[in-house]
């Protein structure tokens, strides 16, 4: 079974702090994703990565950056946290195969509160 873990289930930070959210997968998947989930808005893609040191902006990258130094680890960074970044953050991964509809596997999520 694919295992996707996230460093924290709950996190409380103060405005202006630098925040790191970590995601680790154990299945050697190429693609990794960061989403934020907000009520009434569903899941929105922040960034994704299809290889080590490679990244692509998603639909809402403003205020975020990412790092992928190792294949199994994908970090989301909030350089200066703001209250509007209070949200649930979900990491996902999938094996990149051309033309298939392989599913994304999700981590348990990190609920971040910025005070």
């Amino acid at each position: 079974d694919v295992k996707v873990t996230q460093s924290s289930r709950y996190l409380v930070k103060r405005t202006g702090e630098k925040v790191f959210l970590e995601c680790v997968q154990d299945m050697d998947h190429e693609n990794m994703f960061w989403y934020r989930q907000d009520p009434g808005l569903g899941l929105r893609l922040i960034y994704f990565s299809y290889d080590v040191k490679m990244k692509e902006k998603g639909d809402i990258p403003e205020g975020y950056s990412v790092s992928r130094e190792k294949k199994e680890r994908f970090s989301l960074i909030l350089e200066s946290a703001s209250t509007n970044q209070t949200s649930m953050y979900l990491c996902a991964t999938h094996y990149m195969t051309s033309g298939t509809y392989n599913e994304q596997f999700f981590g348990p999520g990190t609920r971040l509160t910025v005070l």
Partner: protein
Amino acid sequence: AQTVTQSQPEMSVQEAETVTLSCTYDTSESNYYLFWYKQPPSRQMILVIRQEAYKQQNATENRFSVNFQKAAKSFSLKISDSQLGDTAMYFCAFKVYNTDKLIFGTGTRLQVFP
């Protein structure tokens, strides 16, 4: 741009009954995939069922089935013999063939009552 719409923010159903969750999408692509994901309370999101757009036959996974109407761009999920464990947030999602991005709807919160 592709969009996915789930018009039912919340639904409820009694145990053992059948419920249908709606999903419509908009795309100009002809090759794509559709998914239903389930997010139980405080638990990880998991895939429930998936459908390839070129297949006319509706996908089925045990008590879960879809009604895929390609011309109408509709992809509803039917849950038969509902169980308490089906209580969850359900997301409809769309992916263009040969791309990596999933586009999600806003979700439907389903409550199954005993």
